[in-house]
């Protein structure tokens, strides 16, 4: 069933892949806008209300524990990704974080490692592929999950497959944990999404550009090389005005 849906979806993608006068980074814009609208509806109807309620009802102290707990579970894989990118020091630090937080930090509820000087990193398979030189491919909105691109979409697939939560049995416990984790994630993004709403003339475009900029920055760990801007070579004298 899933496979069938996926095949159908790829078919639609291929059908859409061919019309001019669009942002070259986003050739599938009509389809993406469709999924975006769908996601927005789901978000308005379910995710945002649940996250808002969660933020209201659960004290920030507890929410911090929840964030720490899931953050800790993610650290070993973040370390693996750092190793794959050749950043051995960072990888060792991620594993040290996991070791300290799981033990002294009581199953990751307390982020003691940060206080010890082991800073939390942000890595995933999409970033690793990017580091290896894989191009992003076209921008892509995933159903439910939101902004992505072809490279990061494949990366996200592996991230989810490799996620330790997938090992949890019985299944209802596993699904419960995923729900809490997504609620937590969405709650942390409530401010950001409100700011997006206020700042953007066209939310879709604003979010897309922010996503692409953000991922590029993450691939280069916050220090991306300066981008060439073919359309606009007069930045300097404009600035002087």
């Amino acid at each position, binding site marked *: 069933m899933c496979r069938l849906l996926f095949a159908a979806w790829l078919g639609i993608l291929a059908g859409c892949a061919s019309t001019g006068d669009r942002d070259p980074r986003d050739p599938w814009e009509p389809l993406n806008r469709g999924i975006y609208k769908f996601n927005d509806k789901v978000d308005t109807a379910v995710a945002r209300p649940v996250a808002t309620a969660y933020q209201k009802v659960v004290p920030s102290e507890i929410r911090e524990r929840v964030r720490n707990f899931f953050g800790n579970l993610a650290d070993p894989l973040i370390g693996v990704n750092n190793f794959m990118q050749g950043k051995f020091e960072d990888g060792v630090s991620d594993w040290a974080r996991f070791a300290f937080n799981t033990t002294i930090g009581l199953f990751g509820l307390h982020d003691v490692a940060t206080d010890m000087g082991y800073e939390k990193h942000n890595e995933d398979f999409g970033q690793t592929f990017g580091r290896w030189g894989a191009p992003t491919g076209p921008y892509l909105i995933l159903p439910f999950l939101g902004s992505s691109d072809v490279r990061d979409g494949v990366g996200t697939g592996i991230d989810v497959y490799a996620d330790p939560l997938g090992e949890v049995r019985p299944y209802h416990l596993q699904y419960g944990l995923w729900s809490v984790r997504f609620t937590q994630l969405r709650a942390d993004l409530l401010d950001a999404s409100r700011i997006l709403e*206020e700042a953007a003339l066209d939310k879709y475009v604003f979010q897309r550009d*922010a996503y692409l*900029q953000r991922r590029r920055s993450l691939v280069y760990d*916050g220090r991306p090389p300066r981008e060439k801007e073919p359309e606009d070579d007069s930045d300097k004298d404009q600035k002087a005005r």
Partner: protein
Amino acid sequence: MTATRIRRLASAALAAAVLATVPLAHAQEVPPDQLVKGVTLEVVDLIAKDKEIKAGNRAKLVQLIDAKVLPHFNFSAMTALAMGQGWNKANAEQKKRLTEEFRTLLVRTYASALAAYSEQKLDFRPLRARPSDTDVTVQVRVLQSGAQPVPIDYSMEKTAAGWKVYDVMVGGVSLVANYRTEFNNVVRESGIDGLIKNLTAKNRSLEGAGLEKK
């Protein structure tokens, strides 16, 4: 208690120093990283103490940002950068209107962002630049338990009136660059005046919404 008082005194002194440098640009200038730190701490402190702002009074928050933060931004540079090639097609009057409207929009965005982050711990990074540099990046990081710190980078340039911010990058996303596609799209479809109209309408709708609690 004393710590806050000292900090407040320091910020006041810093603000005075900033004001003092404006007329005589060659006198002792506040280094850009000190400027960012001083202004940020002052504003965060003011937000923390203000019951009305904490209760969701957006108008007052915007007013505060307007008075304390905005003098340190170079809005015509920001608008020019966000417009890209469209900027050169605009006449003087249009440039003025664009800058005004973009400024209003950015103030609101900035106010929301600051309100969202005002309770987090901030880490002001030491400036990595030569004393002769006239274009620097000042780095601040927002620390959050269980998550990677969010970097906020201020691109600043030295002008006759002191250091001015011309772009803010949050988590690697340049605010100015992020508006470029949007602005270009609107300009392509409905011209410079269309963009002015669009921005004005956006700001109007936010003014209405700003009254409710966040």
